[in-house]
């Protein structure tokens, strides 16, 4: 039986750009699928096709048991959409915004009012309920947008980059809200450029690039595909790199990579913490001073890199909260791939 969200061979072209090139998805009821990919990969287009906003050129889509192409209006009754930008009327108060959306979901005015009250409380917006949304912070607007999308407690939710542009504190808060939602049984499809976010929230992850799902699985499964754990060492003095390399080669199960400018050496290993202790002892014996050492499991960045041959690029101008993503940023090394870079330039997704 197909899941709460099911897509088969979705294709959508804009001019000569193939934004979706045969997307297949299957999200079991009550689970979260993270759609992970860089800008222009086709994430937003996928969401727009599944939420009836865009008609795919070909393919099949079923949401909440309803055919998206044949019963769009029935689908709209069963879904909530929180788009890439907080879609709230900034001159309306928080309360008025939710009430309006409720009424447009065909709730009676009174029921919409009562529901708005509940949601404002639940999303910590009760104090600001009667202020125009214009006065809200970015995080508050996002919460308001999400609250509006949840007015009828739809069984299936779509969130397109819900935390893009939020500061770390607001991102954490929103993650909590999303987790609560999923505990309540909602099926959720979430797109994100943040590998950390997918890791954190999603049961399953589908990696998209150039309009196709290029890998899927749990976060652990995907990480396993890029190989096991590895030891990373940052030595204090540059001249110690060759000796350190020798030491690591003795323990490693593969080639040692060296980053000269950061004095970082990495080698794949098996043996876990015990082995790490041995490496430290040996380095100490050889008199190599180290700044940092650790056993690292592959991050989703590594997964992305090994799957696509390029890193998940995040455009600076699009989100001020880039710094919040430091962990990912550090792992992202610029890989020059002129072909990909060119395609990316043409394939500009609707982000305005």
């Amino acid at each position: 039986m197909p899941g709460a969200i099911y897509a088969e061979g979705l294709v959508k072209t804009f001019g000569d750009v193939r934004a979706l090139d045969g997307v297949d998805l299957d999200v079991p009821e009550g689970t979260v699928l993270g759609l992970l990919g860089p800008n222009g990969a086709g994430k937003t287009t996928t969401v727009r096709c599944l939420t009836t906003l865009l008609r795919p050129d070909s393919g099949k889509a079923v949401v909440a048991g309803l055919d998206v192409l044949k019963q769009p209006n029935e689908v709209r009754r069963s879904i909530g959409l929180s788009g890439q930008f907080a879609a709230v009327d900034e001159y309306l108060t928080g309360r008025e915004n939710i009430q309006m959306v409720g009424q447009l979901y065909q709730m009676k005015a009174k029921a919409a009012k009562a529901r708005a009250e509940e949601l404002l409380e639940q999303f910590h917006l009760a104090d600001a309920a009667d202020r125009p949304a214009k006065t809200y912070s970015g995080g508050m607007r996002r919460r308001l947008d999400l609250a509006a999308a949840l007015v009828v407690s739809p069984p299936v939710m779509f969130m397109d980059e819900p935390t893009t542009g939020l500061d770390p504190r607001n991102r954490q808060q929103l993650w909590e809200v999303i987790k609560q939602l999923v505990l309540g049984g909602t099926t959720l499809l979430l797109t994100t450029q943040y590998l950390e976010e997918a890791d954190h929230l999603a049961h399953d992850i589908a990696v998209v690039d150039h309009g196709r799902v290029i890998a899927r699985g749990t976060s652990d499964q995907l990480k396993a595909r890029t190989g096991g754990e590895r030891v990373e060492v940052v030595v204090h003095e540059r001249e110690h790199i060759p000796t350190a390399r020798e030491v690591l080669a003795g323990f490693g199960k593969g080639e040692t990579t060296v980053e000269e400018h950061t004095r970082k050496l990495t080698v794949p290993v098996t043996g876990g913490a015990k082995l790490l202790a041995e490496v430290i002892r040996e380095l100490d014996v050889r008199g190599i001073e180290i700044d940092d050492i650790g056993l690292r499991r592959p991050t989703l960045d590594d997964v992305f890199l090994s799957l696509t041959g390029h890193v998940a690029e995040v455009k600076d101008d699009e989100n001020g909260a880039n710094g919040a993503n430091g962990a990912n940023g550090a792992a992202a090394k610029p890989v020059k791939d002129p072909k990909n870079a060119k395609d990316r330039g043409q394939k500009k997704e609707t982000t305005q």
Partner: protein
Amino acid sequence: MSAVTDAVRITAPTNPVTQSIRDSLVVAKRNLIRMSRIPEMVIFGLIQPIMFVVLFSYVFGGSMNIGGTTDPGVYREFLMAGIFAQTVTFATAGAGAGIADDMHKGLIDRFRSLPMARGAVLTGRTLADLVQTALTLFVLAVVALLVGWRTHTSFGEVLGAFGLLLLTGYAFTWIGAVIGLSVRTPEAATSGGLIWLFPVTFVSNAFVDSAQMTPWLRHVADWNPFSATVQACRQLFGNPGVSTSDAWPMQHPVWASLIYSILIIAIFRTLAVRKYRSATA
């Protein structure tokens, strides 16, 4: 999937016509609340026509020949129907900018993902603009009375003239809706909504007697939908300068104005709803 049936139960399908009216009113209310929170927009919308009244009546007043006289008092009475009509058409820009703004901010996406009547977002907006137009027209009429404009007909005829003006304004906001859905930014919708209105309102009988234009231009002016409303108002107000042209719209201005407005609504509403259905922000 029990959750699905729950959702369907609270949002039981209703008669499509009732739903359409209800949804339009919800959206209209939203736009009216919005307008009331941006009063400067309403005020600027008022200042402009008042400025036109004052400028035209006092600057051009003494040099315009209406029905063989250059009496500024006669011109002032002649002018008002033109200013009223021009004012209602300027609502086009507001509707266009509002809809473009909704597109830009992602609100149209939100609306399109809701189980609401398809045309309701646009109908709601145009209805809210109609309310604003009525308010503007009321204030403008008061100012017109202050500078000496008078009607010389029955109350019913005057009311009919205002009805025609509102219908014309409503029709033009649908043109604005199409513009708003076609451009990328609200700014573009504002200028795109206004620019073409200048030739439309000036190549007409609104500010000068079209009989004095060169023949081809007079022809355009006589058949201009906008002129029909102006001519109808002049007739219904009993104001001077009613055109004696034998062009059909000038001979039957009330009918012409009604037909033009209904045609504009039919064409541009269809276009706008079609554009809305495939709108991408």
